[in-house]
């Protein structure tokens, strides 16, 4: 890639003597480096917008906090009997609620595409001489990053749910959150490619978010469920992140293995236990596939 800054020729510079010489900039041919810069700036814009919008960061924390402390405490008095000493109901639902804390931020970060379209900024992005792929990738990574931030803030509250601040556990959870946030953002971006009205986008995603959360096993163990619910939980992509996250938390608690197996059972397909790696891999593949669809959708439009 050649880059050149050229000063205008002498005659025109003399004509415009009192003025600054026009700085000649030649825009380079499209290349990998250019595409990476585009990914970078789209990503950075998400962070800037998140930083300046503190209200959003605070309000998105309210819901998980309510679930953990109000629902967790309230239901805990009922469910407490089946839990071993040292494990509260809050501990049990913590991984699920942690997943929830990134759920809204991730999906709604994609709403900004719909917003940008309504307010014209999307046009500025789409007429640029860069590949649509770099814009979609930047957007997915940006949404994933801010949603993970949101999750990290919620991680600070882990102690209140008696989840230990073990560095390895924290790192595992952050990694899983990042993956979850990426997949959810990719899902949102894919939807935003098709849904052009802001209200419609919010309505559709709101409608999907709660079932995703309730069916993921965030609030109850996946073992011993009636067949219909069991099937539905296995279809929910969120299940495949909540499971490994709960596994990570429970493997850092000092409780009898029997309880662990009951409260944090492996996800099973018709009796076959899905390995953690496959579970995580599935979520990653889903995220990449949805991002691929989003890229194809945005590349199609003029």
């Amino acid at each position, binding site marked *: 890639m050649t*880059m*050149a*800054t*050229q*000063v*205008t*020729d002498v005659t*025109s510079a003399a004509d*415009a003597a009192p*003025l*600054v010489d*026009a*700085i*000649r*900039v*030649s*825009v*380079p*041919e*499209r290349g990998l*480096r*250019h595409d990476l*810069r*585009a990914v*970078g*700036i789209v990503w950075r*814009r998400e962070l*800037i*917008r998140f930083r*300046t*919008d503190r209200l959003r960061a605070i309000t998105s924390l309210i819901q998980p906090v309510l679930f953990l402390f109000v629902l967790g405490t309230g239901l805990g008095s009922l469910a407490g009997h089946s839990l071993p000493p040292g494990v509260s109901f809050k501990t049990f639902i913590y991984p699920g609620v942690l997943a929830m804390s990134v759920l809204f931020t991730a999906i709604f970060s994609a709403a900004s595409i719909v917003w*940008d*379209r*309504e*307010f*014209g*900024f*999307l*046009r*500025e*992005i*789409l*007429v*640029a*001489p*860069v590949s649509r792929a770099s814009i979609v990738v930047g957007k997915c990574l940006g949404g994933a990053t801010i949603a993970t931030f949101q999750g990290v803030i919620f991680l600070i509250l882990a102690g209140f749910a008696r989840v230990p601040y073990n560095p390895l556990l924290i790192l595992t959870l952050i990694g899983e959150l990042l993956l979850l946030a990426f997949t959810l953002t990719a899902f949102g971006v894919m939807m935003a490619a098709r849904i*052009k009205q802001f209200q419609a986008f919010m309505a559709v995603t709101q409608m999907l978010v709660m079932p995703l959360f309730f069916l993921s096993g965030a609030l109850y163990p996946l073992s011993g469920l009636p067949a219909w619910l069991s099937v539905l939980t296995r279809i929910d992509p969120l299940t495949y992140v909540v499971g490994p996250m709960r596994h990570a938390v429970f493997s850092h608690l000092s409780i009898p293995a029997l309880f662990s197996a009951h409260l944090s059972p492996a996800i099973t397909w018709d009796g076959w236990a899905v390995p953690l790696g496959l579970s995580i891999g599935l979520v990653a593949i889903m995220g990449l596939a949805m991002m691929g669809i989003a890229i194809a959708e945005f590349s199609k*439009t*003029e």
Partner: protein
Amino acid sequence: MVTDTTTNTGGAVAPDGAPASARDPVISVSGLTKKYGEVEAVRGIDFEVTRGETFGFLGPNGAGKTTTIEILCTLKVATSGTAMVAGFDARTQRDSVRRNIGLVFQDTTLDTYLTAEQNLRFHAELYGVPKAAVGPRMRQVLDMVGLWDRKDSLVGTYSGGMQRRLEIARGLLHAPHVLFLDEPTVGLDPQTRSSIWAYINDLKRREEITMFLTTHYMDEAEHCDRIAIIDHGQIVAIDTPEALKASVGKDRVQIQTANDTSAIEALRDAFGIEAGMHEGAVTFSVASGEQFVPRLFAELPVPIRSVSVSRPSLDDVFMSYTGTTIRDAEASGTDAMRRAAQRFRAGRGRR
């Protein structure tokens, strides 16, 4: 990064390898058409714009101006015909065209939650402006539109005129060969409009840039080196503003009378003049208006309440080529093509 002050490759050969000389057309369009379903928004237009020229598309709303600009900017694909911009085909070499043009849209396309500087930086990165050039160039374009001292303010706090200026600055940031301005002053108050024009005229002096703009304001078209008058998707006249006005050669007379219908009849019978109703007045053109007015008062059997005589303006040019004033053309809600085209555009959303 190469800073080269002695040899100027940009003069002989454009950085992208396209041959460049002052006479070469920067934009050349032939046989361009665009259909929206059954509706023909652009019906076969041809024109060329030479390097450094400011070229205006003048016509009422819905005449096909925006559609044409969108085809040139690679935002829409023509139904037939070719459009070459900065040496590249707008249909097949979209990226190359996009690298070489700057755009200022009719509607704002700024991120109002970012500062002016952040908006420009975003643009610089998307267009791959060499890193070392971003800072100085940003300063230059912001100085040009008088917004350097406001660069750290959120764009949402800007007035409409400031936002438009910032968009012009952004369109120039990557030093395009052609700057497209779609209705650059629409929706702004008269004072702001004239200040935008001051910036645009200043820009013509500073940068060797070709400008293509659309407008439906007659007075603004006068800022252009050449004008194409477009109506119903066709170019009806194309020349310098002066030549167009000279081609009309007649003064426009408008009279208010007690009975307009009989006044029009009397004008035809007594003077052999075809008059029509425009903007609520009996309107006609005569060779020397001032000398005609006394005769008019003496010989017209209908009482005259008021009279105005005006030198040929672009309004008259528009009228002589299209048979209607631009305001009447916009007011006529019966034009099916226009409405259908607008509906089609609105229905597809902003893309």
